[in-house]
């Protein structure tokens, strides 16, 4: 490909990136603002980070969010993987199309509707709203994302691996845990990470499903912002951005390394032939 830096290319790339990242850059910059006023630069300071860690309300909310995300991501991964297995393996049962549609519907369902219906359900069965209900709600909407990720891996999975394991004497359950699971593990881990992030930044569904004592970080930030944006919130968001970016970059580096290593191995193997 012949990449020339024409003026048009430069303008489009600057505009595009500005559109994407200017708000985030502003937020990060102002988290280091010494002034209390969010839009007026008063010199560099890290005082809001100190204040953030002293803010018990925000810290509690962060802890709740992490716990919800850990539990819901894990449960959603198990359920989503099971759904993906059924969808790819048992292709001949009645109502498969309907079932597929039903598993994937929450992907496009407006969150408000998901949240509201969950709220109605919790009220109807008399479940007190709190940690448990938020977690259940998050499992519900994130498991379909896991199912999509795992299913796409399972479609390219060579079934003869499982047949070979059984042929060598491994019963089906053992085959699943010793062969299938390790082979599709990268997809399951990606699914888990996706579910974790989805749970971490969900506001709408948590607002419906949560109750006293189970305020998540997005809810807390949103409610505080309504009283006015404080640099503390900027600091909290900057930390979140930092964590997410680190995760993404680390994953990319690991993937790249593995691919390079794999290619090198394959070339070495070709030469041996």
């Amino acid at each position, binding site marked *: 490909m012949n990449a020339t830096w024409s003026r048009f290319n430069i303008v489009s790339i600057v505009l595009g990136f500005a559109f994407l990242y200017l708000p985030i850059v502003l937020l990060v910059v102002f988290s280091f603002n010494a002034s209390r006023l969010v839009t007026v630069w008063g010199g560099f300071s890290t005082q809001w980070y100190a204040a953030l860690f002293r803010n018990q309300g925000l810290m509690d909310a962060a802890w709740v969010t992490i716990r919800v995300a850990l539990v819901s991501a894990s449960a959603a991964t198990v359920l989503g993987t099971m759904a993906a297995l059924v969808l790819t393996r048992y292709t001949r049962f009645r109502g498969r199309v309907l079932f597929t549609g039903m598993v994937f519907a929450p992907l496009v369902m407006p969150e408000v509707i998901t949240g509201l219906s969950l709220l109605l359900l919790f009220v109807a069965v008399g479940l007190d709203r709190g940690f448990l209900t938020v977690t259940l709600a998050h499992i519900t909407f994130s498991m379909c994302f896991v199912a999509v990720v795992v299913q796409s891996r399972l479609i390219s999975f*060579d079934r*003869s*691996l499982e*047949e*070979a*394991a*059984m*042929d*060598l*004497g*491994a*019963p089906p359950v*053992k085959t699943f845990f010793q*062969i299938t699971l*390790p*082979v599709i593990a990268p997809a399951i881990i990606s699914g888990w990470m996706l579910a974790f992030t989805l749970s971490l930044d969900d506001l709408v569904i948590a607002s419906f499903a949560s109750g006293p004592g189970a305020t998540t970080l997005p809810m807390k930030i949103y409610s505080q912002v309504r009283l006015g944006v404080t640099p503390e919130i900027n600091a909290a968001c900057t930390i979140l951005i930092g964590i997410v970016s680190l995760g993404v970059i680390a994953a990319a580096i690991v993937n790249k390394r593995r691919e390079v290593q*794999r290619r090198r*191995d*394959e070339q*070495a*193997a*070709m030469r*041996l*032939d």
Partner: protein
Amino acid sequence: MKSLGSIRRDFAPWSDPQAKPYIRFENVTKRFGDFTAVNNLSLSIFEREFFALLGASGCGKSTLLRMLAGFEEPTSGKILLDGQDLRGIPPYRRPVNMMFQSYALFPHMSVEKNIAFGLKQEGMPKTDIDRRVAEMLKLVKLERFASRKPHQLSGGQRQRVALARSVAKRPKVLLLDEPLGALDKKLREETQFELMDLQQELGLTFVVVTHDQEEAMTMADRIAIMDKGEVMQVATPAEIYEAPNSRFVAGFVGNVNLFEGSVAERTENTARITGGSGAQILVENAGEAAIGNDVAFAIRPEKIRISSRKPQDAVNALEGEVYDIAYLGDMTVYYVKLDDGQIVRASMLNAARIVDDPLTWSDRAWISFRPDAGVVLTR
């Protein structure tokens, strides 16, 4: 002693009426929905036999193998292994192992672990597993690669790992699904002989599925030619080639010329066949063909002689014109268009470097053959 083909086989339990078949398919039918993959098939395979199932894709040969391995159950009929009915026995309890076409090596395990997998399932003690794995690695000459992962191996090495893994448990029967399909030509030829040696050494019964007739001819003691879920002929490679039982088998294995016609005269062994254009040939091996039957005389290209003048002594000689010539180095193939329009393929071994008076395109030529050079087919 006279026999079909150019080799003598001392191992022939199939011609001994006392011998008990080791694997027996009895009226096996397998349907997938409306599609009949295997149709009322019966077949016997003997102990220590190298048996090949040969056919085009979709002929049911792989289904047959998968039923033996236990991945598919017959819709009707039964499969016996050493006298035991296999119905209902899951793949992980059958004393057969399979080598898969894709090799199906476990990508997250090293070569060693792959080979040890089956032994571990048996609950074999660790020291015994280690010994057996070392033995297998030596057998397939992969000692140096024990700790490699499958993706760090070449195609030929992967094939050998798959082989080592499938024989590690010393199964009674080894099933091979297109074992050499993914290898290039040169490696395939070497590996054919390695497989044959291995089978001799381990004394196992091999059942191999292949669509490559050369592979089947080289390796197998007997070949079953399959078409549309049915066995067309089961015989040794030489019998399949020299005495096919039908037009399909004759055409499927190697090249063949078919002279269609009807039987005009018949003696105990010979028959006179009149072709559509009135040409007559006298043949032996007439089998059950009766006067008036529509038959085909099948003759292989290398058994036809081609000459520029009519041979004096030939019983059967037909005249035509050289239509096309393919020079292949070791032999030359002539396509002769007979005066009735039929194109006959005749091949000549280039035993001499220098040829007197060679033929060229559009020359008049005679083809001739002995009465016993082919077979009469009624099917």
